[in-house]
């Protein structure tokens, strides 16, 4: 039996989704931009970084460093990508939401 994907919180779900949305350009600046734009909420810089570190520790994302850039004061961008385990975790979370929402469509429908 396959081990169940680890539980992830709401912010972690949002971060994973934002990474997927950014595709090849998934480094911290656009991740935070996409997340704040689409979820329409403020996200503290530190909170994003800590979430990313946590997701990496749980092996739900991996990261690689790009080339050092002048625009970043000589620092490299760190690009993130979602691992298969990360995708599983997202699917599980989504499924849980879907199942729990069944029969409540009328209530949850946006008016």
């Amino acid at each position, binding site marked *: 039996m396959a081990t169940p994907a680890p539980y992830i919180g709401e912010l972690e779900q949002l971060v994973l989704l934002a990474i997927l949305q950014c595709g090849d350009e998934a480094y*911290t*600046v656009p991740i*935070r931009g996409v997340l704040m734009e689409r979820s329409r909420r403020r996200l503290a*810089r*530190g909170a994003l*970084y*800590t979430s*990313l*570190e946590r997701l990496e520790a749980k092996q739900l994302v991996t990261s690689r460093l790009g080339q050092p*850039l002048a*625009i*970043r*004061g000589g*620092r*490299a*961008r*760190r690009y993130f990508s979602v691992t298969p385990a990360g995708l599983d975790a997202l699917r599980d979370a989504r499924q849980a939401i879907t199942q729990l929402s069944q029969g409540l469509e009328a209530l949850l429908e946006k008016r």
Partner: protein
Amino acid sequence: MAPPRLASRIVHWAARRLSWGEMATGDLAEEHSVIAERRGTARAGLWYWGQALLLVLGAGYRAAIEAATAIRVLLSLGDRPMTTLLNEVRVACRALTRYPLITAAIVLTLAIGLGVNAAAFSQLDALVLRPFRLPDIDRLVVVSEWSEENSSPHDAKETVSPANFFDWKSQTRTIDHLSAYTWWQINMSGGDEPERVQGFQVSGDFFQALNVTPALGRLLNERDTAGGPHRVVVLGYGLWKRRFGARTDIVGQTIKLDGNSYDVVGVAQEGFDFPLSAALWGPIDASPELVQERRDRYFTVLGRLSPERSIHDAQADLTVIGDRIRREHPVENRRYRPLVQSFTFGMIDPGIDQILGIVQIGALIVLVIGGANVVNLLLARGWDRRREMALRLAIGAGRVRLLRQLLVESMVLAAIAIPVSLAFAWAALNLLKSAMPARILPFVPGWNDLGIGGRLVLVISATAMIVSMLLTIFPALQAAKSDVVAALREGGRSVAGGRSGRVVRSGMVVLQMAVALPLLVASGLAASAARDFALGPQGYDPNGLVTMRTVLVESTYPDAVSRRLFAERLIDGASRLSGVEAAATASFVPSGDSNASRELIIDGRADEGPDRRPTAPYRTVSPRYFETMRIPVSAGRSFTSADNADAMPVAIVSQALASRIWPRENPIGRRLKIGGAEDQRWMTVVGVCGNIIDDWYSRRNSPMLFVPMSQRPTYIVNLVVRAAGDPALLSGELRQVLKSVDPSQPPVHVTTMTTMVRERTVGLRMIASIMGVLGVLAVVLAAVGLYSLMAYHVAQRRHEIGVRMALGASQITVIGQTVRRACWLAGAGVLIGLVPAWLVRGLLRNIFFNVSAQPELYGAIVLALVAIAIIASIVPARQASKVDPAVTLRSN
């Protein structure tokens, strides 16, 4: 586009310890350049600064959390903190009860040390730091004038001339409600008995300056002073309750003061009796003459700093105004400059802060000496407990935990000592309060607030905790350092605490001696000053004298003849009483509450103007005054009844005045006159009398000028009567004599002269007693310290002494060694202490004027300390000499 350099550095610094610091720094730089491109550099810079600030705040928050966690971990070592603490308190209590004698000794020593400090601090707080309880007192200032000829403004400040006050008031831009007050002692008649009442005349906005509200009616205002005289008064709350039975219809009624009718316009709020226990307040009569008065200085001036103005602004402002006044009126103001001081500092008697400061230092010295004993006791106990400590270390307790346990023990000791010390202080303060005579009480603002208050409890508790922690640190470190193996080995023999413990213990004894010496010198000097002024020769014989004062009312006694007749009838009536040897009157008697001085113009010398003339205390006395007082007239003659208003004006000078004005010349027959007086006739000196102590505070041997009462009768009449028997028995009859002469004249201070002297010197005697008590405590504690050190030293060396004696050392040699060691320690301490002891004299010289070098005092104290060292070491030394070598050697 690079971000602002400073902000960038701040970002680096704040991000340096974060795991995501690199990422954040890079992102911020990148986002900055994007914003700069879109919205311009300025906006981007501002944004970047905002981000830097957020990072710094975050870093600070995280550091605080980390520190708090670390402290929690240290305190609880992983347990729940409260449970751990309670456990440790329980363990500490058990440990302390295991050594009940040592615990009791430590608590008692701490309680004595803290108790004297509590009593001293209570005095300092009540009399120096917060003697006046007035609303918003921090904004109140006192403005006085100081004479440049004196070195320190605080010592040389004087009251202000009315004209200068009115000029300041109209010109200052930094002080609101600048107001003045002056003494106004009045006879209040009506009711059963006439009464002498302490009042004050105040300028219009006196009450506004002090922010006082009326309990009834209204207070005085500017309309009451201008275009006067206005006969209105405000009653003090106390007087209103006592004399008028707290009648609410008193407002609008008329009362008789000095024979004149005054309307009562209001009653001041309860508790307000400023200045000097004032019983009522009337308005200053701002007549045109008063507004022009620049020579006499008798206004005390206070005010409230304007909003946003500091005391320095006010001083600068007043200095400019003062310079202007000096240019316009140079004769009267040549020497004087305005001085702005905080209300509390400006109002307390100069010197009282120094006196009580010295008392507080003395109390701290007692605490230090006691503390040294506590350290020694803890070290000794630590040595006894080394097995316990070693065991606990061996079964896994950390050294930090042991250290913490010992600190908790010290806290428990402090917690027991605090209430005991407060009880000591309470008893001592009550003793002091009961010793203060009612006559002096009004002159000591804050005295009624002496006692144990919340502030004192806080200060003493904090001191107790800190002191007890400090005292425990070294012994605790020693104990926690225990060598597990050596301590557990049965019969292990080493010196307690090792070499450092020995050095610290000896050092404590040296320290005790070194700090005890200056304290003892201060006690000795204060005692000798008190003895000189209060009990020593006064220059007259106070024994057998009784005195009574009354102050004549101008409306009843408008001229010199009526005043002279009053005095003569009073003397006559008193002389007729049985048991009276002699009677006389004087304008002022020694050790009284008030004084008067006059400027002197000397015949044959150039008069250099009002502010350059010599001045001297001035007394108007009746013919038999010198005989009654037993003041020797050493040259010439005394006054006689022939020295009347029609005769040649004469004077008698004291020896001190004679030698100041006519050194190496015969003063008899010389002439002088009083500057500024109405009577400008020359007075011929007909006699020289001995010096007397008029007031200890104005030094011994102050020069003095006496003139005959018949030639210059005064309003103030002090009757002095020499009784054949007990003078106190005459007081009732003297009151009757006064009543028979004029029933409307109230008698004031009917008392014996010895009481007057005793009351007048009460402050000095109190300080001497307090210093004496501190000195005795210091000596006793130091002796106990030395004794316990030597006893411990002997107990530690029992074995060694046994060996020595087995090898042939005599008892005398053993005693000699122990005593010698004690003497060495005491001697070293005394040698170190001589330096501060010498400096103490300079300090005290400012306070007790006659403090001389007194080498014999120093010698006696040094000898006494060494003698105490010898006595304290004799008992342990004798014990050492009784060691039986055989027993000692066998026991090993």
